[in-house]
């Protein structure tokens, strides 16, 4: 990618308006919630923003390549465990996870570096395994990614010397992931994912998604283009995993398996997997929906009716409904831009549309 050309291409009013809008919405919501100063809502926002980072990383590969990337949530898990191992002090690790390999116990990095190291570990794992898998598309590709998720999950849940095995991995200490850190990382990731999508690499990947044969005959190297996006996606997933583990403070391999994947998948598909705005609004919508349903569940529980898990049923039904009637999600696979907002406002569109304006003038005359 030629950086100079890319920057020249950034037409502020048209292309990058998406980034500005998404960041503005996120920061405004964040600032408002900070001002409200209610811990319960701050907790929901921080969790939701961590999910947003995960969904954005998910979108980076899956949305642009069209390959159902089941293994993604495995990289989130790798990042979560790896960054926790880096950030915990040796004494704490020896206390919490006595079975751990001695050389892992002796590792120690300050928290920000540990987060980056966790993301790097996820990227290295992805880089090592992904090359041959990138040749596969369609159902074969989906099964391969699924099989990879299971391999990662078995390793995370059984490797007692690294992840404490099937037992809970407790980080101990204080909560290092803060409200503003998560918000800042989310802003950076929005910029990164959007710039990737608009870059020449992203364009090539989207071309392989839209027409395999045309893309190939235009000289696009499928495997290489997919590989870069896959590894980058794993890196963002790993970063989000690190933020997650330092926020929740106790994790198990089961937290990074099919339930979590289903949530990410429904957020991305309901929003519209082909655009960054889709990932953003899908996360927003599903988070609000789930929190609302959880309140209903709690209310029902108080009245003596066990309803836990009904939120997932509702999300799943909405997901199927979207796939049937609006398969490209609420955004329809488009980005939120200044133009699309103007189109939604009736006054602005009148000015913009010369033919209908002329017609109206003639009518008046």
């Amino acid at each position: 990618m030629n950086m100079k050309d890319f920057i020249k291409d950034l037409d502020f009013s048209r292309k990058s308006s998406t980034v500005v809008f998404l960041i503005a919405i996120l920061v405004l919501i964040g600032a408002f919630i900070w001002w409200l100063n209610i811990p319960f809502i701050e907790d929901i926002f921080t969790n939701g923003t961590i999910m947003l980072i995960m969904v954005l990383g998910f979108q980076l590969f899956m949305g642009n390549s069209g390959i159902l990337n089941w293994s993604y949530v495995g990289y989130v898990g790798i990042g979560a465990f790896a960054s926790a191992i880096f950030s915990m002090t040796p004494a704490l690790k020896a206390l919490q996870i006595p079975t751990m390999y001695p050389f892992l116990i002796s590792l120690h990095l300050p928290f920000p570096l540990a987060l980056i190291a966790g993301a790097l570990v996820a990227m290295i794992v992805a880089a090592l395994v992904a090359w041959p898998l990138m040749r596969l598309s369609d159902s074969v590709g989906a099964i391969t990614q699924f099989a990879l998720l299971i391999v990662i999950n078995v390793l995370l849940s059984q490797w007692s010397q690294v992840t404490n095995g099937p037992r809970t991995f407790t980080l101990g200490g204080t909560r290092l992931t803060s409200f503003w850190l998560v918000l800042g990382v989310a802003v950076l990731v929005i910029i990164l994912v959007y710039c990737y999508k608009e870059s020449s690499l992203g364009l090539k990947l989207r071309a392989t998604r839209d027409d395999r044969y045309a893309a190939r005959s235009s000289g696009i190297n499928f495997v290489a283009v997919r590989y870069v996006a896959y590894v980058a996606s794993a890196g963002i997933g790993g970063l989000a995993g690190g933020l997650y583990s330092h926020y929740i403070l106790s994790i198990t391999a089961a937290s990074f398996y099919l339930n979590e994947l289903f949530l990410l998948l429904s957020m991305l598909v309901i929003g519209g997997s082909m655009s960054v705005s889709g990932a953003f609004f899908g996360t927003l919508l599903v988070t609000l929906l789930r929190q609302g349903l959880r309140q209903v569940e709690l209310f029902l529980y108080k009245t003596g009716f066990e309803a836990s898990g009904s939120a997932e049923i509702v999300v799943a039904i909405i997901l199927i409904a979207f796939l049937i009637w609006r398969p490209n999600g609420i955004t329809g696979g488009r980005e939120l831009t200044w133009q699309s907002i103007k189109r939604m406002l009736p006054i602005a569109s009148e000015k913009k549309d010369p033919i209908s304006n002329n017609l109206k003038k003639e009518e008046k005359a």
Partner: protein
Amino acid sequence: MNAQIFFEFAINVLSMGSLYALIALGLVFVFGICKLINFAYGEFITVGAYVLYFLGVFTSLPWPLVFLIGILSSVAVGYLSELVAFRPFRGRSLDALLVTSFAVSVILQRLFQLGISPRSKAVPVPAFFNMNIELFGLTTPLRNLLIIAITVVLLLILTVIMKYTVLGVAMRGASENFVTARLMGVPANLVISVAFIISGFLAGVVAIFWTARTGSAEPLMGMSPLLIGFIAVVIGGMHSLPGAVVGGYVYALIANILSLTLPTSLLSFRDAVMFAIVIAFLVLKPEGLLRGNYQEERVG
């Protein structure tokens, strides 16, 4: 002594392999025609298991009737899920179908957790299932021999149906090339519904023998047969029915050999090894052991 170990190993592989072959066959029937990897297939089995539990605990129906109703309920769930969730996706993208089957699976699991219980329920098993049989100087429960016999009978019946009936020929035609089959007058809805019904039927049979081995039913029990089915289908070849059967037996063979040879400290990683084999197959030999009619596009 050695012969005895060999026979024990052989019976284990054959009985497990028969069960796995039925699981894989149920998956591949749907995959062959719709090109859908049905994630909800495991829940078809769970439904059968729960019906066995309810009928076995709360009624005193004779066993053949219990089994029949169990199988029929799996068939019903298979057919209904096709009608409600999968039919709107005719001619749409493969990923949409795949995500839908995942969502159907989540819905059914949560319904079991909400409606029945998140904890496992003990499923009664008829006494003759666990009756010990002397064979070649070793004892084995009758159910191990029963599953082998039933699998042989089912495979024969399915072979006759697929080879000599109009419906079978239509289904084979549809799985080879759906568009051409439709042009020849094969009704799409009928063929796809029958595929789901056969898939549900096999799930019902699997439910009987799966619960006979584990002795319980729980909301998430569908996961392990589903994973086994995946592996067997990939190894055998995703586009051929005989391939699925071969894959089932090969999986049982590999799993048994790994259980015997892996040291106990590594035994918990067995699934990782199995799925690494799956990935290797998909990358190096995507058509599986038995080559079917491999094609990229999906229609329907």
